[in-house]
């Protein structure tokens, strides 16, 4: 474990890339589009005659004008200045499960690019078969009875759940009374935000001294007003709550529903399921646990599963099978309706289905175990670094991640987690996820070394933090002023919250910063 690891000499590409508008050369074309045939033009005449005159665009949009090689060069420079998961040891983005997305699955998913969702079902039997079989796999992995794949991300799935809780209590004539959802501080912030958007009051429980959500506080919060519970386990701390059944029971006892936020299932795939813990519903992020690439934040899928009792409330359609043919089933009597148009991000389903097939039942368990072994191995390496501490649950084994703290480093050197985060980039490692806000664990950071990462990857990642810790104790300025080897230098963040200076578009920037546009 005390191997000497040579830290690589890294520098990010620096292209000083202009904004694309600055590269514009009047008259250049990046692509040409089909023109109408002569006969069409002759017969229908000018396009403009079909547009009422005050609806015709008077001034062409001021888009950039570039030839194709210049367009591609520009965006390839931007790509190079992006540290994708494949480019680095992305143990950094804990809670996000930055696992490898197999290339072959990209090829497979590309086969449905030119398919329309409203085609006759006989012509999309392949897609429906995959959705149906993916559903069967996820039912088995969760113990739930039916999934919907319509939600386009994790927060969208928790929103879907909030709407289902709403519809369920409404059907029972209790919605006016049951207007509270309970969640916990170490569950994702969307477990507070999405039920609030759905119209609920939200009670967020604080952790007890051991890091578990406070059971007594939960019991005190449960009442005839409780619509349901939305909770993660293990939470972001990596601590598995062994009394989860009691939490579920307390909520069920007052007539509430229980939703298991399993955006990140990675440590317990094939090990423990939502069903056995008594949950009514759960969701899995296919772009996390099930390997679909993260795509700079989507396209994604929050696959959402329920027990039989909640199935009639799901968004429509779901896919059914009659033994010979697959169908789109719109016949869900209490459906909440759509949470978005069409069926969801179908390309994502195909990648996840292919991944599950490549793993099989033993492979899924192997992946879960490898992630837990990696986490405990990395944890040992990190806790040996001066300045790193771990809060809560002394002596308890963590599963797939740990929320560490630089509290000690901050006390000793004045260097905190965000400065370390900036410095990591100088070593070609993605800046780590600190924690969701607010920071309950002081100076937090949350690595997640899922099964993708090798023993050497864990060691290298730890070695980088060890190096930064060493710098903090011996030469803190180098950390404080980081990054030094990034594509850019220290950001002026004040402008981002200043209405006089913020600019979401080149138009706004021109007006505010250069006064060129009126």
């Amino acid at each position, binding site marked *: 474990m005390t191997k000497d690891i040579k830290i690589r000499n890294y520098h990010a590409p620096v292209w000083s890339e202009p904004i694309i508008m600055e590269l514009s050369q009047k008259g250049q074309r990046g692509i040409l589009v089909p023109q*109408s045939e002569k006969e069409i033009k002759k017969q229908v005449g000018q396009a403009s005659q079909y547009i009422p005159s005050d609806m015709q665009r008077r001034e062409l949009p001021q888009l950039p004008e570039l030839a194709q090689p210049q367009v591609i060069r520009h965006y390839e420079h931007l790509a190079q200045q992006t540290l994708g998961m494949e480019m680095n040891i992305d143990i950094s983005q804990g809670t996000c499960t930055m696992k490898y997305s197999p290339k072959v699955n990209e090829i497979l998913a590309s086969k449905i690019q030119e398919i329309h969702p409203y085609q006759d079902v006989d012509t999309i039997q392949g897609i429906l078969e995959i959705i149906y079989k993916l559903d069967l796999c996820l039912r088995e992995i969760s113990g739930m009875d039916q999934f919907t794949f319509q939600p386009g991300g994790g927060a969208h799935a928790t929103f879907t759940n909030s709407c289902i809780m709403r519809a369920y209590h409404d059907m029972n004539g209790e919605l006016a009374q049951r207007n509270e959802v309970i969640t916990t501080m170490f569950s994702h912030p969307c477990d507070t935000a999405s039920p609030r958007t759905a119209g609920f009051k939200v009670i967020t429980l604080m952790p007890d001294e051991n890091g578990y959500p406070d059971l007594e506080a939960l019991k005190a919060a449960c009442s005839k007003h409780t619509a349901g519970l939305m909770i993660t386990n293990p939470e972001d701390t990596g601590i598995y709550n062994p009394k989860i059944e009691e939490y579920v029971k307390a909520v069920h006892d007052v007539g509430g529903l229980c939703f298991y936020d399993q955006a990140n299932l990675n440590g317990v795939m094939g090990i423990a399921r939502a069903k056995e813990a008594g949950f009514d519903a759960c969701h899995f992020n296919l772009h996390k646990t099930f390997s679909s690439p993260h795509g700079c934040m989507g396209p994604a899928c929050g696959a959402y599963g329920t027990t039989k009792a909640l199935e009639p409330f799901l968004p429509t359609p779901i896919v059914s099978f009659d033994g010979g043919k697959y169908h789109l089933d719109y016949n869900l009597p209490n459906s909440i309706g759509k949470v978005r148009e069409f069926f969801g991000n179908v390309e994502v389903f195909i990648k996840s289905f292919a991944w599950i097939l490549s793993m099989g039942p033993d492979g899924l368990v192997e992946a879960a175990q490898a992630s837990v072994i990696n986490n405990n191995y990395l944890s040992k390496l990190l806790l040996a670094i001066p300045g790193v501490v771990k809060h809560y649950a002394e002596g308890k084994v963590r599963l797939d991640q740990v929320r560490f703290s630089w509290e000690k480093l901050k006390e000793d050197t004045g260097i905190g987690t965000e400065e370390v985060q900036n410095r990591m980039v100088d070593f070609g490692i993605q800046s780590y996820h600190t924690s969701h806000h607010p920071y309950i664990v002081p100076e937090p950071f949350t690595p997640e070394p899922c099964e993708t990462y090798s023993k050497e990857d864990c060691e290298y990642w730890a070695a980088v933090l060890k190096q930064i810790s060493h710098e903090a104790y011996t030469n803190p300025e180098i950390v404080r002023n980081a990054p030094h080897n990034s594509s850019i230098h220290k950001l002026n963040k004040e402008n981002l919250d200043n209405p006089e200076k913020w600019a979401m578009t080149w138009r706004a920037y021109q007006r505010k910063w250069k006064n060129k546009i009126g």
Partner: protein
Amino acid sequence: MFKKDSFVHPYIPNSVPRIKAEMLREIGVKDVEELYIEIPEKLRFKRKLNIPGPILSEYELKSKIMKILSKNVTCEDYLNFIGAGCWQHYVPAVCDEIISRAEFLTAYGGEVYADTGKYQAFFEFQSQMGELLRMEAVSLPVYSWGAAAAFAIRMASRIVRKNEVLVPRTIAPERLSTIRTFCGPDNLPSQIILKMVDYNKIDGQLDLSDLKKKISSKTAAIYFENPSYLGFIETKGKEISEIANQNGSLSIVGVDPLSLGVLEPPSNYGADIIVGTIQPLGVHMNCGGGTGGFIATRDEEKYVVEYPSLLVSITNTSQAGEYGFGYCTWDRTSYMGRDENGKIKEGSKDFTGTISNLWAIAAAVYMSLMGPQGFKEIGETIIEKTHYAINLISDIPGVKTIFSSNSFKEFIVNFDATGKSVKEINQSLLKYKIFGGKDISQDFPELGENALYCITEIHSQKDLEKLAYALKEVLQ
């Protein structure tokens, strides 16, 4: 614990038994089971999962899935005339190339020092959308057009502090359903009530007298679309926006951004918020997975602080002349929605999360390739081909098009006089390898047996003539 087969998996470096044993030794446990000690026995799943696989060789995996996928028919195999909010436009190869780059494909939520290029690409997406829309504030995508409209309606309701919104009856049913989900429910006080505004039966245009009847002191916003779901250009945009503004309500316009080389951007006829889908801008249909909604407003603080979605702003850095980027008003996002006691922070707006940012990059590339002239030409081509198709179809005995005098790329084909249902006709068209227009007879029963046809730049004159020929044959 069941006995599991041991194999070295190419996606799991530490599946090698020697390495695993070494790591367990270092951790100080004998068996991996000791790491699961916190999970109570009764919550453990004890048998083997009943799922297929593993298919360990990549070749066999690929063959297996390809076999299933080969049961699909694509819009490259058949001629497609379905649109309805998911449209078959040509996707330039450069768009696919850029979003296939592993740097973009596999990045996630990394900070700007690691992912500088990603942030700049996002800024350029927003900037180019801003040019198309003539708006200064544009956010990263939300889930779909319907979700964008819903979030815009919620923004309007907070800004104006009213809770009714007027929506056209001609809206897409799925879009309306999405909006309802976000605006419900009936029995909680936060509900936003949707009131449907009728349309003119002659030309489909929003019925202004019905609009004036329904607008009230409770109205937060009027939402309408251009082109409408049923394909025609809504010609009285300016008047509708004025009615909204005079009432103290906002004007929200849903738009197909690909039309904006030829159609006036809604900001020029009074829109306060513009929404729509980015799918036509270089994103494949993906069986509906190509959706991504956009939201745009003027750059005014009262609007900016109400966005639920992520806004990338440009800024400067410690190096003179260097651009930097970051999230504008991060505190309004749901990531910052709790205080240190677990209480909700009122300044946080709705929710955001992982959505469809890769499509925003595809759209940025698309807009850069097309440029102003490309948008103008594609708009003209689409209108010309659409009206050529309208003429051909109208010539078929018993068939007429409706609301189609100023269609952009979609129009209704009415089959009432043929005695055949759209369902039957579309079934028959499959034999000619044609996907006929979307059957909207159930959605708009008052209009009869109707299909919504979509024509784009990809349809050649021959394709359109083939459609007309097949329709004639089918209707005989």
